[in-house]
């Protein structure tokens, strides 16, 4: 791979972003389908994908909107779910080169997703603005394209298949959570605490009156605070996985 590197930094970024793009198209097809199944139109789903560019946040967002959640609840939930991005942006802000302008920071951070971050942070040396623009180009449009396809195709699917697709988002969440939980006992314990609290908020009388958005925030913050207290993360590299 290294010897076939294009000289042009933008093209280098484009090449590195293509695998991300392909992955996004498939995930965002599921998002498009989920959005339509919750009663959103194709254009609404597309607008969400074009303006948010975040998988877990969007999935959670449409669930809450469909449930008629309050604005503050949505804002707080989005903040909690997406707060990890602040760490990624922070890391990237240390890695960009001297010619990275303020306007570049404003634009590039818009598409600072988990995968873009993963690729950018694993790249040797400093990051140029051209490379970063190349890197985010195809993932951004792939995310939108998949959303459109998923939302459009969904209308042609029979009811029982659409219902089965309702578990797709959870399948993705499982795929994100389980591998690190398998490798690190601390993650496993934090996840177990979060799940236990989540079940309490669903099934225990009185407590289950708390709306789902706030319940998730309480579960996640409590579990993560316990994790941070008892299993502080040692290396910065761990955070960048």
């Amino acid at each position: 791979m290294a010897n076939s590197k294009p000289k042009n930094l933008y093209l280098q970024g484009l090449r590195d972003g293509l695998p991300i793009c392909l992955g996004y198209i498939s995930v965002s097809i599921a998002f498009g389908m989920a959005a339509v199944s919750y009663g959103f139109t194709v254009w609404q789903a597309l607008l969400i994908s074009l303006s948010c560019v975040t998988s877990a946040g969007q999935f959670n967002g449409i669930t809450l909107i469909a449930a008629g959640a309050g604005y503050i609840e949505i804002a707080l939930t989005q903040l909690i779910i997406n707060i990890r991005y602040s760490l990624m942006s922070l890391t990237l802000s240390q890695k960009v080169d001297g010619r990275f302008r303020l306007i570049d920071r404003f634009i590039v951070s818009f598409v600072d997703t988990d995968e873009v971050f993963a690729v950018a942070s694993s790249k040797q040396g400093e990051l140029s603005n051209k490379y970063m623009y190349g890197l985010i180009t195809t993932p951004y449009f792939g995310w939108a394209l998949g959303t459109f396809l998923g939302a459009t195709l969904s209308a042609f699917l029979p009811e029982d298949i659409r219902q089965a697709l309702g578990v797709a988002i959870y399948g993705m969440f499982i795929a994100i959570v389980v591998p690190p939980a398998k490798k690190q006992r601390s993650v496993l314990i934090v996840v177990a605490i979060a799940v236990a609290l989540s079940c309490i908020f669903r099934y225990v009388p009185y407590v289950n009156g708390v709306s789902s958005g706030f319940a998730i925030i309480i579960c996640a913050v409590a579990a993560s605070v316990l994790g941070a207290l008892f299993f502080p993360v040692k290396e910065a590299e761990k955070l960048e996985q």
Partner: protein
Amino acid sequence: MSNNFFIYVAIMAGVTYLVRMLPMVLFRKKIQSRFVRSFMYYIPYAVLAAMTIPDIFYAGNGLAAGIAALVVGVILALFERGLLTVAICSCVAAYAASFVQDRLF
């Protein structure tokens, strides 16, 4: 959807963007607090886990569908299959389970 869709989207997009943009624009130094860094490390997993269980049990057509989706998803994820593979297989498992449940019970 009792509230305005566009306000919802503006909030989602605004919060998501601010969370990404502010550290990139404002901070030049690394966060030193080990507690905060550890907290941020665990947050995504805790959020996703809390969102998945117990909600997955009610996401398909019946409880059997949800349980099948969870079991199949966790097994495949243990073998570190990709997001799409796990998601699709969970859907297939949910479909198969609800199919069996409808026909046999």
